[in-house]
């Protein structure tokens, strides 16, 4: 056995930097998980879109293109705001404490997005498009299986956007938390890691929507 050479200098001076890296890497790995999580649904979407393309077109017509567009814009705005907030905090530009205002606005934009989405849901549900045994298959051109496959479109729509909405709710809560921490804290380092990690997550949830929007709203 060789002897162990002992490093005398302590590890502590660079610990906080180390933890910052660890948190970011952890979030990146978590996002890889998320990609595969949504991946299962995207694969299902591709399979059935290929099988029943006409049903997807007629299903897509029931969605509100403009509402979806506005939602997309709002979400992207939120991403911009949190990116700027993150930059202020990381580079400690100006009065980085003011980042809490941007974070709050991000949370608000997320909430508006969710409001619009649930508004759309309630419309679709009152029209009977929520998948169930009395789905109004007759209202769709007799695509295949007498319009039944339009139901598949809505199963996928509600599963995928619903799962995304769940992520949005988590995201809004996280942003709200880091906003409060940023407001209270005087030391930039205390909040830098939290904001960077939450911003990553927020961007990811945004990117998912950027895929969902054309897949459901822009089917031709």
């Amino acid at each position, binding site marked *: *056995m*060789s*002897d*162990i*050479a*002992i*490093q*005398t200098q302590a*590890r502590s001076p660079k610990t906080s930097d*180390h933890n910052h*890296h*660890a948190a970011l*890497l*952890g979030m990146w*790995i*978590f996002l*890889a*998980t*998320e990609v*595969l*999580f*949504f*991946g*299962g*649904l995207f*694969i*299902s979407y591709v*399979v*059935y879109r290929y*099988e*029943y393309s006409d*049903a997807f077109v007629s299903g897509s017509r029931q969605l509100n293109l403009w509402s979806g567009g506005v939602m997309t814009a709002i979400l992207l705005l939120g991403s911009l705001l949190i990116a700027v907030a993150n930059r202020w905090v990381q580079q400690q530009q100006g009065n980085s404490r003011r980042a809490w205002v941007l974070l709050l606005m991000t949370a608000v934009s997320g909430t508006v997005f969710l409001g619009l989405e649930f508004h759309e849901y309630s419309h679709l549900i009152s029209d009977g498009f929520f*998948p*169930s*045994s009395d*789905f109004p298959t007759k209202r769709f051109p007799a695509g*295949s*299986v007498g319009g*039944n*496959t339009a*139901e*598949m479109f809505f*199963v*996928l729509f509600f*599963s995928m956007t619903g*799962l995304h909405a769940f992520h949005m709710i988590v995201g809004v809560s996280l942003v709200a938390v880091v906003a409060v921490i940023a407001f209270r804290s005087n030391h930039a380092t205390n909040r830098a890691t939290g904001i960077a990690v939450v911003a990553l997550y927020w961007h990811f949830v945004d990117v998912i929507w950027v895929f969902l929007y054309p897949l459901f709203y822009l089917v031709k």
Partner: protein
Amino acid sequence: MFKVTDQKSYLNAEEGIGSWLLTTDHKRIAILYMVSLTFFFFIGGMAAVLFRLELFTPEGDLLSADSYNKLFSLHGIVMVWFFLIPSIPTVLGNFLVPLMIGARDLAFPRLNLFSWYLFMAGGLFTLTMIVVGGVDTGWTFYTPYSSTYANTFVILAATGIFISGFSSIVTGLNFMVTVHLFRAPGMHWFRLPMFVWTIYATSLIMVLATPVLAVTLLLVATERIFGVGIFDPAIGGDPLLFQHLFWFYSHPAVYIMILPGMGVISEIVPCFTRKRLYGYRFIAMATMAIAVLGFLVWGHHMFVSGQSMYAGLLFSFLSMLVAVPSAVKVFNWTATLYKGTIFLKTPMLYALGFIGLFTFGGLTGISLATLGFDMHVHDTYFVVAHFHYIMVGGMIMAYLGGLHFWWPKMTGRTYSEWWGRISALIVFGGFNMTFFPQFVLGYLGNPRRYHSYPDEFQVFHVMSSLGASILGVGYLLPLVYLLWSLKFGGRSSHNPWQAAGMEWDVPSPPPKHNFDLVPTVDWPAYDYAPAHKELTIGEGEPEPH
């Protein structure tokens, strides 16, 4: 050099049940996992004992068909998700990875504790649902049976698996970040013990495959709740899509189960041959190759499912490729014995048993990947025998080997070597007697999951059931003498096996913060000097300090 001072070990640094349930110490969390996994293992084992008893006779006379179906489902669900998948990573991985790489803890200690709670929540939830209501879909949850026809507690059982899946993801994430960022200075990748490599590869699979299972179970639950869903043929859904998604997770999950076992073997063999691991870099690369290729072979579970002929050809070919890195490992372990100084202590018995049984299990796996052969034995006892050779003959042997190897480190106590060897031999014998006849049964055509079977198969079923009772004894023995050792075992020195590796440089049991000073590594892995014959490997006699 590491003086045994009066400093307290992680075991007695704090007292009381609360100090255990709220601990963030990776070593204590490993112990928490060990206790919970032992519990789940014996639950799953009990189910196996019951249905093996039923299979003593061809008629379904002891249990009703329904109870039989629920029991094999319970056995599969509990063993796969609540024992095999977490086993080595959460127990040995949690305990050893920080010690092996020279870290004070995992990257996210609180997350580590959280994942134990997730695991327990999911496990106990599923177990309650299975015991109260029962699930009869098998562990594979094939649609449309699981989504439409089964009248059992499918959603609730799936919920528990869903929750514990996140425990798996969080654990994997934690290991990956730890191995990337928390290695001691000088501990570069090719100085890592092979065990760390395998845990890293396993974590990669956990992080990338588990979410697909999660979303698949979510879709099955949606389908049951709302009556319509993705796999429902009534609205044009495809039941085969479920199989694709399920096996996209579950085939890599097989490698989650076996890779860490390979890691353990790669630690034990060099120690008891007093020699460096032969072909270190090749084994490391083979490990990563298995992790990656494992994602590309899921379709070999579906050769007779009705997928296209070309898909069958492609998946068969890819499955052949994944056998190469496994073969490389077996050859390298065997080559490590060459010109070594061989000691046959309990862990080494388990390790050699692993090599033999894994080889046979792997070769029968190649047979199954051979298309023409699979048409006949698919979904028969041949498949059951094959994966038990990998999972039980491979993984559980490795787990027990690892437990015996590091037991002195984890507890500071030594167990009876004599009992250790006896039970290793009983496990090996009982295992082969249980599962070898099942290969014959499978080729004769006995389908799996059969509650009753034709008379001509009885001889093999009786052999298998008798073997299972021997195997059961083999598993109970370590439980007894290892627990015994906690109270009556001798004190272990810091390095009873005179093994290389940083975990052996700290006291047994290690202090709470592992290292007083983080070492700088300037030696390769498996730094075993060629030993002389006088060298004895300790039975636990404390070394003078």
